[in-house]
């Protein structure tokens, strides 16, 4: 079992803040997520979800970023208190 408060970015609720722990994978998608600033230690806010539930809207490093749930599933985060 994972530690309490540890969950995938895709599983955060709207309004949650979390710290990125790590991103799994080494392909195109992972490289792009890193380049866009989702690096270990950075704080992310789950700002919203599209009307059909996917993709997600995040606030990271002061700007808004949209990624799909499947992409957010590979980002491990720790929920901020």
């Amino acid at each position, binding site marked *: 079992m994972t530690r309490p408060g540890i969950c995938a970015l895709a599983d955060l609720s709207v309004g949650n803040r979390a710290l990125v722990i790590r991103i799994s994978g080494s392909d195109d998608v992972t490289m792009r997520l890193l380049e866009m600033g989702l690096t270990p230690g950075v704080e992310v806010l789950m700002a919203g979800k599209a009307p*059909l539930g*996917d993709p997600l809207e995040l606030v990271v490093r002061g*700007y808004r970023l949209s990624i799909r749930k499947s992409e957010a599933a590979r980002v491990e985060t720790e929920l901020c208190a």
Partner: protein
Amino acid sequence: MSAATDRPPLAIALIGNPNTGKSTLFSVLAGVRQRIGNYPGVTVEKKIGQMTCQGRSFLLVDLPGTYSLAPRSPDEMVAVDVLLGRRDDAPRIDGVLSIIDASNLERNLYLVSQVLELGLPTVVALNMTDVARQRGIEIDVAQLSQRLGTPVIETQANKRRGIDELAAALLRVAGQQHRPVEAPFPAPFKEELGRLEVLLNPPGEATIPRPLVERLLLDTSGYLENHLLANGRAALGTELRASRERLTQAGCPVPAVEAMTRYGWVAQILEGVVARPAVRPPSSSDRIDRLLTHRLWGTLFFLAMMVLVFQSVFRVADYPMGWIESGIGWISTGVEQLLPAGALQSLLVKGLIGGVGGVVIFLPQIVILFFFIAVLEDCGYMARAAYLMDKLMSRVGLSGKSFIPLLSSFACAIPGVMATRVIENRRDRLTTMLVAPLMSCSARLPVYTLLIAAFIPDRSYAGGLIGLQGLTMTAMYLIGIVTAVIVALVLKRTLLRGPTPPFVMELPTYKWPSPGTVAYRMVERGWSFVRRAGTLVVAVSILVWAALYYPHDADVVEAPFAARKRQIEHQLAELPPDDPQREDVEREQAELAHEIDGAYGRQSFLGRIGHTIEPAVRPLGWDWRIGSAAIASFPAREVIVATLGILYNLGEDIDVGESDDRNRLQAVLEQATWEGTDRPVFNVPVALSIMVFFALCAQCASTLVVIKRETNSWTWPAFTFVYMTVLAYVGALATYQIGMLLAG
């Protein structure tokens, strides 16, 4: 001799994230002095502009907007190769103009950190300072400049602020020797890098510069390895993986180490340089965003927006299109009056003017669609539209970015195909482009309208709510949509198969669209279509004209009509000018002229081709005349109406919008019989078969030329034409055969 010609121009590359105003800055700097072309083998546009500053001329090379200099596709490789001077078809770069968004420094400086490592003289344009100020962000520009080691110039491209200072700074630094900036990577990484550089550059072989070696080590997607380590150097791949393994052991996991290092570097640069309010007050952009991405209001707004865009392209464009048609008609009449009847007059009127008209007629739709696209993009809504539609489009294997190009294709596939540029992924972009012509465009409407009015009974069901005619029209649109979905799914599983591309997309801050940028986009898109499509479409149109005109053997064709012609001329000469009978005789004369035109049509090469292919189109229920008309409509679908008019002796000036014209053509079509029999050609299955054919076929030279222009290859338009024609034939065949079975 002026000073400008003494020295070669300085080549400056423009690079920056998307949504930083880079294109606006480029057009402000270069003005109209720009050339747009293609880099061979890729779909990246090659934009080169010129400017002069204090007597020195500059070449401005606009590179595609990007978040990172880590190439993972041939398209992304272009920017890196241009910057490193590895492309023969681009000038050697003397300096870099790096454009950054002042309201979003952190992420923008990531790219700057990569650019600085290239060791080229660099000027940073700090753009959108007004937005930053509104958000309460204060930047110590002098300090930033000092830490970066480059000039930093504040600009507001859309208001032309800071442009002179920028040009002066470029003049100061460009061409100067610049010391390469030490990469901010940790020591173990630099050691591995040094080792690889030696291994990769054995004496006597083409060198791979250090920035590319670094990229190679960091690119875990495998693209660069395949690209750089081909032909016999594959063994180095093992070294590469061993290096990465060692780095992971040393606490520098690849690829994460790059992002962590660079964002760490950015944090150091910005420490004490940027002051922002501790608690960010919700900006108006945030409030707008909450509403526009809201489950209910956001969806409603999106639907309303799409209806507005679609209706404008579809209906508003109708007025200017009408004016263009009248203008073309006016010029044609003028030429007909100036020149004697004959081959030259016919060539000019039907081949040349008709062909030019066939290109210009698309301009209103292109310009109107790009007005909306430019406004939506410039204000930041375009990304939200893709965000809202992504889930739906992902079911077809595409992303939300394909939605607007496909929607616009219902009005006209040409601007639709041109709008696919927003899709970065090559496979998604190609799929969208290849299925866009399946959307029933406005040029199919005349064909549908005519055949439905003539052959589909005007019945209604459910108390008048559902009409059979309207139902048929809807069915034609649905056939296109369903086929497009199937074709897209098949393409994404076969020819264009590959891993799902990242969707990862910035949702830019909302801002007011700049009228200059919008106007520029409209003119640029319209002009580029006319320039690229014009020549070829006119040539095809002349070719089809010649096929319908020649051999034009007057003796053979006119002989059977000679007696009647003389008789009518005689009657007209006898009758006094105000005799009531005169009108009837004149009508008879016009009908005879149409019959003669029809006879020429039958004798023409196209008529003969139609006869030759009749066995091939007979299973569709078509006679040779429909076959000929289908061939003649290759340049543009709507031509079929005029060609049917000629071949059925009605003359070609059929206006489907005029109920008189429509009724005449309908009456003739209803009475048409297979030659030599009294079996009627047209019935409901035949009419449906023609409609299905036109719903699915690629009879539009302009669309094919635009696909060639966007893909930079003739392969894809050829593929589009073949697959659509095959589908159209099979669809029409099935429709007719099943229809006949049911009609029994």
